[in-house]
C-alpha cells in the first residue's frame, strides 16, 4: 500500500539530518527543519517529499500533509519556479503600493495573484506582512527579499529573470495563465463515491449553496466566484505631486537601511 517514494535524499542532506538528531529532543520536533531540508533538496514539497519527511521524523504522512498545508511559505509543486510573494497587508497596501507592484507583475507576466504561467516558471501570490513595513511594497521572490519594490526596479528585475530563462514578456501575455491549485490531491478513482467514476473523490460539494465544477466563475474553474466589481471609492484620493512615500525618501534616523536585503 505505502508506495516507496520515487526520490531519495542526497548524502549531504542526510548528514545535515543526522546532525539535527543530536540537537533536538525528539524526531518529531525536527519536522519544521526537515520540511525545509526536503524543500531545498527537491525544489518544492510534493507528495514524495512529504513521505520522506514523515519517514525521517517518524510521524504519519497525514500529519505532514497537515503541516505543509497549514504553513503557507512552503513551496509546493503548483508554485512557479520563480515565486513572487507580494505583501498585501495594510502597511504595504496603503497608498496603492501593493496594487502597483501587482499591476507591474501582471503587465510583465500576465499573472494575477494566485496564478502561474502555463510553463510553471513564474507564479504570483499575495502574502501577509513580510515585516519590512517601512519600505513598501515588500516582495519576496523565493529566497530573495526586496523592499520598495515597484517602478523601474521591479520591471528591471523581472526582465532580468525573463532573460535568464530565455523568455519574453510577450510570450506570457499571449498565454493563458493557470490558477495555482494548492489543494490536497485527489484520491484514486476507486475511492470515489458511488457513481462518480471519473471525478476523483476529493471534490467540492455540488449542492446548493455550493458550486458544481465549472459553475460559479466565468473562466470555468470551479473554485472561485466572480471577481467583485471595481471599488466605488478608490483607496486613496490622488494627491498633488504624484506618488507618496517615494522609495528614495529618507529612512529612519537611527533606523534602517533602504533597498534590498539578501
Amino acid at each position, binding site marked *: *500500500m*505505502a*508506495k516507496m517514494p520515487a526520490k531519495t535524499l542526497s548524502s549531504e542532506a542526510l548528514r545535515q539530518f543526522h546532525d539535527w538528531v543530536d540537537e533536538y529532543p525528539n524526531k518529531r520536533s525536527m519536522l519544521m527543519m526537515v520540511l525545509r531540508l526536503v524543500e531545498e533538496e527537491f525544489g518544492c514539497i510534493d*507528495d514524495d517529499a*512529504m513521505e520522506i519527511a514523515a519517514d525521517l521524523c517518524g*510521524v*504519519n*504522512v*497525514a*500529519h*505532514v*500533509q*497537515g503541516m505543509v*498545508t*497549514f504553513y*503557507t511559505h512552503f513551496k509546493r509543486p503548483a508554485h512557479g519556479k520563480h515565486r513572487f510573494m507580494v505583501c498585501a497587508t495594510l502597511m504595504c497596501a496603503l497608498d496603492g503600493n501593493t496594487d502597483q507592484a501587482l499591476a507591474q507583475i501582471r503587465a510583465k507576466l500576465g499573472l494575477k495573484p494566485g496564478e502561474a504561467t502555463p510553463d510553471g516558471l513564474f507564479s504570483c501570490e499575495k502574502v501577509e506582512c513580510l515585516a519590512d513595513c517601512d519600505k513598501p511594497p515588500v516582495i519576496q521572490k523565493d529566497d530573495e527579499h526586496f523592499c520598495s519594490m515597484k517602478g523601474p526596479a521591479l520591471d528591471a528585475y523581472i526582465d532580468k529573470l525573463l532573460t535568464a530563462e530565455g523568455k519574453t514578456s510577450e510570450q506570457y501575455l499571449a498565454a493563458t495563465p493557470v490558477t495555482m491549485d494548492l*489543494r*490536497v*490531491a*485527489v*484520491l*484514486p478513482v476507486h*475511492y*470515489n*463515491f458511488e457513481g462518480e467514476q471519473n471525478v476523483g*473523490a*476529493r*471534490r*467540492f*460539494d455540488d*449542492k446548493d*449553496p*455550493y*458550486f458544481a465544477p465549472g459553475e460559479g466563475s466565468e473562466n470555468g474553474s470551479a*473554485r472561485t*466566484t466572480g471577481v467583485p466589481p471595481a471599488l466605488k471609492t478608490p483607496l486613496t484620493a490622488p494627491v498633488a505631486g504624484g506618488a507618496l512615500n517615494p522609495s528614495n525618501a529618507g529612512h529612519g534616523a537611527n533606523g534602517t537601511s533602504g533597498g534590498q536585503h539578501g
Partner: protein
Amino acid sequence: MTAEVKMVNMKIDGRDVTVPADWTVIRAAHKNDIDIPHYCYHPDLSIAGNCRICMVSVKGAPRPVVGCATPVAEGMEVTTTAAAEVEARKSVMEFLLINHPLDCPECDQAGECKLQDYSVDHGRDHGRFHEEKVRKSKSTMGPHVKYWGSRCILCTRCVRFTDEVSGTGELGIIYRGDRNEIATFPGRVLDNPLSMNTVDICPVGALVSSDFLFQSRVWNLHSNPSICPGCSLGCNTRVDLDAKDQIKRIVPRRNDAVNKEWMCDSGRLNFGYVHAGRLQKPKLGGADATWKEARRAALELLALNGGANTVALISAWNTSEAMAAILDLVAVESPAARIFGYGNPVVADQVFPGFTIYGDKNPNRAGMEQVLGIADPAASLKALASETGSIGTLLLVHNIPDFVITPEFKAVLDRSENVVLLDFASGELLRYGNVAVALPTLTSFEKAGTFVNNAGLAQSFEPVMEPATYGLSEAEIVEALKRDVGAATRAGAAA
C-alpha cells in the same frame, strides 16, 4: 499502586459534589447528571478544548471558561445555566452554524446530531449570516467511511481517535482557519479495523458510514442493547432495527470495564447471518419435519445405549445457559455420554494503543470453562479427533456463523454414525450425509443468555428482536426434549 485518590468538594449549580482531584469540570458534572453541552470533548480522548460550547462560569473568574479543560479544585463553585455562559454558548452555536449547509433532510446524522440537539436549546431563532458559505470537499475516507466536509465542525475527535486509540494516524487536518478540512494523505485511506468508531464519535453528519448511508432515518429505528459475539472481549452494543425487525446497524454502548465506547468494524458489520441462510425449520434426514418428529428422532439417537457411544460436542459460541441446558439433557438422556468443546481457531490479538481486538474469536470460552470445565476448546477437539473408532451419536451444538471446517473437525464428523445438530444456519454442516436430525436454534440477537468474556466478566443479554425463524433457544429445546422423555416414561409406566 492503588494510592488513595485525592478527592475535592465543589459545587455545581448549587449542588455539592465530591470528585477526584484530577478530574475536569465537565467530567464532574456529567458524573453527577448535570449536562454540559460538548462537541470536542470525549471521555476517552485527549482534551482539545476547541469547540468552545462547554462554557461554564467559575466563581471568581472574570468570564466563562471551558468546562472540558478546567480542572476541578477544592471549594470551586461552578454554574452551567447562568446568563453569561448561556449567552456565550448561544454565540458559539451561531458561529458553528454559519458555514453549515443545514441539509438535515438528507443528512444521515439527522435525529442523532448534536448540532440539532444543541441548536434547539442554545441557538437563535433566525440566521444572521447572509454571506457565501465556505465550500469544502467531500471524500471517501476508506471502505466504510465517507466525509462531508461542509458539515464538519472540526472538533478533531476523529483525528484524535486515529492518533490515540487506533494509533494508525490516517487522518489529519489540512489547510488553515475556516478552510480546515479532515483528510487522508492521497492514496492512503482510513482502513483500519476500528475505522467506523470515527463515525460514532463524529458529533455531526460529517463522517458517515458507507454501510448505513441513506439506509434509514434514525427516527424510524428502534434500538436494544446487546453483546457482540465476535470475539472474547464481548463489546457492549446497541442494535438498531427497523420496523420489520431487520438489523440496520450495530454501534457500541459505553462500558468502561470492557470496551469503553469503541468496537471493531467486523463486530459492527457481522450481522448478515441473522437475516440470511437460516435454518428455518427442523430437518429429518434432509427433509423438513415438525418439531415433534425431529425431537422424537433426536431422543432416540441420544438415548442409544444410555449414551455409551454418544459424544456431545459444544462450541464456545454458545451461551452459558445453552451449555448448562445441554449438560442437563445429557445427564438425563445419555448419562454415559462424553462432552467435548470446540470453537473458532484462535488467531493473534490485534493490539492498538487504546483497544484490543482479541484473536480468540469465541465469545464464551470462559463460560465454557465455568460450565463445562473445558478450558481449551481447541485442545478438547484435538483430543476427540485423535481418537479412533466410530462415534454412535454426535450431539453437535454449533451456532457459529461463517465457521470454517478444519480437518480435525471433519475427522470427527466423518467418524460419527449419526449427528444431531443444533444450529441456526442451514450451512455446510447440513450437507453432511450423517446429519440425521437438525434442530433450528437462535442467534444471540434473538435469545437471552450470558457470555463470559476473557476478563471473566459475565455479561447477560436479552433478545433484541423476535426470532426470525421457527428456531428455539437451546434451553427451550432441552426443556421440550425433557418433557418428551417424561411423557414417554409416563406412557411406559401406564402401559
